[in-house]
């Protein structure tokens, strides 16, 4: 398996809810819409989704409630058995796993964080965090040591002996995060982890999460219904509606080129200059004559505002973080984005 092989690869995945989904899916004509399927008495939780998650990537799945995003992530972890298609994790078809193999996979490779935390009410913070370790039979000292380590990582030192109900919402979710990290998973699922928290705490937890991610570099599937949160965190965003993926792309592309009207509705009110990066807007060099100092491709247009206004060049060279010029930015285009006039 090469390093560039996707960690999760889903092909034509279907998840139907109803009386006998398998046989219904077999008889299903192509192109039947969500509403038509519903009229037949079935709910298409996931509708013909193909998506890949690369190693170390953070894929954010965004959608409103009922769009199937939580169902999709539960298919990835096989909390739901899919009705059709294939899902491979590290090249292994997870639907072919036996119960024992599935348990082993979860014990060693996957971690998951839940919207309403899913903490065990009768266990202390320490015992909750150590729970997955206990389940795989690690001895008491080992798991205590590891649990204390992750508790420290999420900043809950000194609360090890508390019970979940003695903690605030934000603290409870830290426990949930610590628990999901205890086994050092390769793949990290987060199902609307911050949606149950109030806005200020949510912001704080997002920062905390970015810090953790920078440190750990895990492959992440993150679910949210909050478009701003998606833009803030994602390497790529998949926007879902009625069980299907409407568009899956980088935040820059989604904001600049929404694929459908539905996606466009989300991007309408977004301040594009704060989302779009110079490299996202840049065009290939293609023999343009470039002069002067390049600008940093990793900066947003908003961050470059002063340069864009004062610089008089028509074309600005764009460099990656190693200083190599990778493209060229038309100053006019960038100014249009900045001023919100497309």
């Amino acid at each position, binding site marked *: 398996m090469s390093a560039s092989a996707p960690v999760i690869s889903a092909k034509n995945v279907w998840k139907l809810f109803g009386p006998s989904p398998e046989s219904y899916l077999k008889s299903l004509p192509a192109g039947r819409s969500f509403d038509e399927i519903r009229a037949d008495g079935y709910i298409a939780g996931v509708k013909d989704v193909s998506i890949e998650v690369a190693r170390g990537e953070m894929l954010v799945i965004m959608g409103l409630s009922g769009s199937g995003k939580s169902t999709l992530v539960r298919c990835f972890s096989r909390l739901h058995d899919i009705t059709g298609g294939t899902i491979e994790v590290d090249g292994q078809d997870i639907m072919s796993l036996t119960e024992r193999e599935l*348990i082993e996979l979860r014990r060693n490779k996957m971690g998951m964080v839940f919207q309403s935390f899913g903490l*065990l009410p*009768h266990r202390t913070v320490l015992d909750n965090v150590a729970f997955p370790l206990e389940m795989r039979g690690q001895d008491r000292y080992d798991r205590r040591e590891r649990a204390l380590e992750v508790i420290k990582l999420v900043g809950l030192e*000194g609360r090890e002996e508390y019970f979940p109900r003695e903690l605030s919402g934000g603290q409870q979710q830290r426990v949930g995060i610590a*628990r*999901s990290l205890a*086994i050092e998973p390769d793949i990290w699922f987060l199902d609307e982890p911050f949606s149950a928290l109030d806005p200020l705490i949510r912001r704080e937890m997002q920062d905390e999460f970015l810090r953790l991610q920078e440190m750990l570099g895990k492959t992440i599937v993150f679910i949210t219904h909050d478009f701003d949160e998606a833009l803030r965190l994602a390497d790529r965003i998949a926007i879902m509606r009625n069980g299907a993926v409407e568009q899956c792309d980088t935040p820059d592309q989604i904001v600049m080129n929404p694929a459908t009207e539905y996606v466009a509705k989300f991007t309408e009110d977004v301040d594009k200059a704060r989302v779009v990066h110079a490299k996202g807007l840049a065009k290939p060099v293609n023999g343009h004559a470039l002069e002067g100092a390049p600008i940093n491709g990793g900066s947003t247009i908003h961050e470059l505002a002063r340069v864009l206004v004062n610089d008089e060049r028509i074309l600005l060279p764009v460099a990656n973080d190693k200083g190599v010029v990778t493209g060229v930015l038309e100053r006019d285009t960038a100014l249009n984005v900045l001023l919100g006039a497309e």
Partner: protein
Amino acid sequence: MATLSTDISDTRDGPWGQTKVLTALLVTAFALILAKAIGILPEWLNRIPEAAIPPTAQVLDAIFNFIQNDLGLIYVTRFIAEGPLEFLLDTSANLLEGKRRWPYLGPIPWSAIAAVAAVVGYAVGGWRLAALGAGTFIWTAAIGQWKIAMQTMSVIVVAAPLAFLLGLVLGIAAWKYGWFERLLKPILSVLQTLPFFTYLLPAVIFFKVGPTAGAVATITFAIPPMILMTTLGLKKVSPEVIEAGQMSGCTRWQMLRHVYVPAARTEVLVGVNQVIMLCLAMVVLTAFIGMPGLGAKLLAMMGSFKLGRSFEIGVTIVLLAVTLDRMSKAWVVKQPVHFERGTPWWKRHQISLVALGLFVGFTLLAQVFPILAEVGRKQHLSQGKEIDVAIKSFLAIDAIKGTTEWLRWFLNVKVLIPFRNTLLAIPTPAFILLVVSFAYWVGGRKPGIYAAIFFTIVAFSGWWDRSVITLYTVISAVALATMIGIPLGVVAARSNRWSKSILLACDTAQTFPSFIYLIPAIMLFGVNDVAVVFSILIFAAVPLIRYTIIGLSNVPPEMTEAADMSGSTRRQKLMSVQFPLALPTMAVGFNQAIMFAFFMVIIAAFIGTQDLGQELQRTLAGTELGKNFVLGLNVSLMALTFDMAISSWAEKRKRALGLD
């Protein structure tokens, strides 16, 4: 109510609309009654002729005999009874009351038990429960009832844990396997309405007379709510907690052991509370099969009209009930609290250590001061005779005597007997039709059909007249209870303080073993029909008051506020806002009142009735298992008919009002 039930009736009835069916049923019923009145009804339509009644009891007897002797079930049950169960009961009896059996350690001094009860009370609910726990046991010892109370307790401490374990296992199985739950559900609803006498006889036959039979009957009686609570709790575990367990890589067993059962803690503990209370209620009633203990003593005292001693035993039973109930309920709401890191071992287990210390301390002290071990015959503080004299002279006061005697005369001559005679005069088919139309009108089609089936079975059981008398007692008592209970509930619901204290009183009253309710009835009215109705009445009024208050105070405040702002008077608000919204809840109370009445009417056989209960009580003396079963099933079927009709109405209504 008519409009209420029609507007939610099933619209798919088609040409057979509800009104049409009802009219047809009622017209037929009244035609039959009329025919009888003018003397043209053939006798076979009035009562089912003897010849047509199948020998159900004999057939059942044959079946039981086959299972018991030919299949050898009796050897299995007798083995259990004489083996492990008797061993457990002997052990607990030795420890608590000093029966001469292994381990030959007992009896434990009463002071040591009272001390431990105080510590347990403190641990679960602070000083008040500590005082309650200690107080109950000190009272029991001081009044000279320690030994009989411990005879009762020794069965409870064995029966309750066993009922808990069996209920938990069956509950888990019912939750895990859908088919098992579907199989279990109807059995459970029959079990819950089956009169307790029906539990007693099979227990005696299969598990021999004495504590073992008592324990078996008690366990069987206490299991159903434990099963239901377990299943309910497991179903309620939040999906995210389950998924968290799965994602942690739990095996199935780990899921059950570490995720499901602990997460269902509250419901499981509520089940424990119910198991304990039912065990107490049942153990007292095992007096009817000659089990020694508080119940037997109470039965004997009431039988010889010793009101003072009956009263004292009643207080002991009530105290025990309240203590057990409060402590187990406090345990339900008690949540774990963390200790700071580095708390020493002895401090973490402080409470257990104190309990152990006190236990050992008092046990040793009791060696030096015998009064701490046992309160002797001459030392106790019982005032039985004095209370007896006081109660009897109070009842002999002219005003009191006049009132009770007038009430007795009025109810008997003007209300109860005419009502009974009317019911008995109705031809059997007409009676069934009337019940069916009631069930259909209230509950809809399904309860109507079941009512028809159930009452036809009752009619063919050969005990029709006795069943009608049972029903008459239940209806009269519940009607009177409604007249008293609902106004009382309405008045109480007006003020927060009142409704709180009345609710508390009701909750407490509900924990009393039903037997207790016979005491005031006999005191006031002596041994007759009125006393029977009166004891059922107070027993059945409790849930009525309780649910009236709950229903009225759970009406959403924005609705009463809307009524206030529309300028409605108190009366208008009550009639057009609060009552309609509270009715489904009140119906639950009404339903419970009927179930309680069916339960109590059987116990009232002790006072002397002519209904199914009396016959049931007679079967206890013999081995007529078949007859016992038929009688019990009759009670159960009648109770189930009402239960289905009323709960189906309450559910539909709740859904229609969006109150779920």
